[in-house]
């Protein structure tokens, strides 16, 4: 009996102590969250800035471009994290609670966000409301599933959601973000529009180089690229030389890639390879968590041998062990690339990310 009484009093004391400790800590504690530095923000965040929360760092980088001084931009998933599995932390819900704009892919990639949104109790950012931005609206989606019926759960029915890997998609993402911003802050619409044009221009120039953009305009070039008629077009002559000679930027840097065959670990890279002409002949593990069958493995090994494939792209959030086993078995080189901005500390925006990818692939492609 004595024991029970002493136990009970112990519990009461512990309740009181833990309660007061947490109350004390809350008063002093600053929530740690993923916070992007505002390069263009001189004034610092104040109450009149818009609170933008993005699912991924890539969207945050673009949002910063567009929103500039008028917003504070935060993002939830680390650059190094697997985008499908983001363990929810309390601070995320708090971030979302105070958000004016929630920017997400909108293609059931961020399944983890639904619990967060529920807990955040912020009506404005729910799907369909004014503060919800689905950046994939209008993106030319690849790898859609043919089946028309919908099933429950973990299936990317709407196609490949890793849209951040294709620079052409950045323009669509930026447009959607601009639309969202203008909806909630129509006063600064022209500011956002101007930033959008700046951004688009920057993307064009990064892709094609200044010369061609000045001559033909970014929009033309982009639609040519999308329709896969760019290179036939560039065969044309203009003022005595082929247009091709005026090509600059990423398209020039990746000339050696065109037509090369590679293997990818998972379906992260399709938009990148479509844009720059690489051909993915096979995936090691198309369905993560489901190891491939013997037949699939043999087929891949055979393909790698037959077609002399030398390079395998692996997003850096994957465990290194399996790709290394594949390296040992087939002699292929596994290239680990961060999938997102801030995946490695040196990469602070989308352009740097693309530069990094192209540099690394150029080094390793035979």
């Amino acid at each position, binding site marked *: 009996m004595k024991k029970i009484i002493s136990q009970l009093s112990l519990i009461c004391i512990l309740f009181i102590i833990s309660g007061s400790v947490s109350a004390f800590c809350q008063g002093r504690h600053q929530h740690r969250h993923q916070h992007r530095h505002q390069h263009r923000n001189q004034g610092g965040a104040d109450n009149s800035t818009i609170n933008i929360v993005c699912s991924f760092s890539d969207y945050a980088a673009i949002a910063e471009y567009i929103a500039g001084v008028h917003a504070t931009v935060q993002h939830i998933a680390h650059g190094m994290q697997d985008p499908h599995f983001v363990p929810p932390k309390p601070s995320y819900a708090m971030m979302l609670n105070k958000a004016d704009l929630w920017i997400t892919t909108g293609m059931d990639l961020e399944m983890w966000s639904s619990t967060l949104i529920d807990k955040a109790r912020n009506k404005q950012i729910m799907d369909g409301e004014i503060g919800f931005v689905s950046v994939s609206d209008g993106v030319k989606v690849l790898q859609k599933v043919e089946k028309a019926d919908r099933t429950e759960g973990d299936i990317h029915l709407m196609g490949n959601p890793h849209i951040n890997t294709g620079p052409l998609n950045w323009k669509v993402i930026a447009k959607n973000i601009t639309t969202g911003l203008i909806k909630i802050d129509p006063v600064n619409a022209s500011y956002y529009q101007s930033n959008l044009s700046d951004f688009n221009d920057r993307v064009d120039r990064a892709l094609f180089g200044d010369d061609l953009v000045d001559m033909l305009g970014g929009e033309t070039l982009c639609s040519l690229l999308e329709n896969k008629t760019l290179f036939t077009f560039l065969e044309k002559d203009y003022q005595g030389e082929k247009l091709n000679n005026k090509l600059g930027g990423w398209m020039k840097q990746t000339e050696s890639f065109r037509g090369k065959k590679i293997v990818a670990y998972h379906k992260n890279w399709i938009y990148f390879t479509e844009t720059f002409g690489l051909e993915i002949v096979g995936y090691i593990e198309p369905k993560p*968590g489901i*190891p491939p*069958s013997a037949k699939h*493995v*043999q087929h891949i090994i*055979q393909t790698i041998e037959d077609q002399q494939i030398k390079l395998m792209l692996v997003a850096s959030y994957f465990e290194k062990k399996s790709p*290394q086993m594949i390296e040992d078995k087939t002699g292929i080189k596994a290239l680990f690339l961060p999938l997102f901005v801030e995946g490695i500390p040196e990469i602070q925006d989308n352009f740097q990310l693309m530069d990094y990818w192209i540099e690394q692939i150029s080094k390793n492609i035979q």
Partner: protein
Amino acid sequence: MKEILLFLAPPITASLLLAGILGYFGTHILSRGIIFIDIAVAQIAALGTMIGLLLGFAEESGQVQLLSYLFTLVVIGSFSFLNTKNLFIPPEAVIGIIYCIGLALALLLAEYIPGGSAYITKSITGNILWVTWDKVLNCAMLFSVIGLIHIILGNKFIAISDPETRFAIPGKKTKLLDLVFYLTFGIVVVKTVLVGGIFLVFTLLIAPSAAASMLFNSWKNKIIWSWIFGGIGTLTGILISYYMNISNGPAIVCLLGLFVFVLAFTKIFIPSKSSTN
């Protein structure tokens, strides 16, 4: 046909090696009643790797592997010193606690390691299909060394694993033998999980020996038949995976699992079946 065999040869050899050593250890594990020990060991090994990564070593480096092994051996060594007779909870519960806390620590540390979520034993990672002859040789050598230890001390190990004979042996001797047993077991588990993945290892450890133990009584028969069941199971599994285009590890696991359950129910419901020696 030839290419298929050529392609399948290293994985099949590796599986047979795995089935062999795990079938042997499995019979012991079953007798000691600590079924989930390998899952606990795998998680502790992963935790060791994470600690290595946190200390700054590169993922592929030898130091990380070493740390992983060392950490595992320390934990499992301490487990072996537990006085199972005076324990207020069954040893499997201790295994459960180790697994649980190990996993909790791994979840907390995963935040601080890029790609950390890969070290949490939740998925069926590992595919024996990618194994090279190099690795097979590596395994074969390691297993022969451990096998040798177990051939020499085999009978003594059987004596301490079998609950009926265990307490007849003087305490100190039991403790020492226990330690050697668990240390060698730990090394085998860490190695096999690296090659085949946690689920394959778990199934090869338990299922063939469970089947053998249901049918036979003598240790010799139990061990031999675990090998046979394990070997046939993996072989069939790989072939099924190939011809029906099913994920490899799961095919083997499902096959062996079904086999055990069917065997169990046959035994229960068919009265005339009596256990042979």
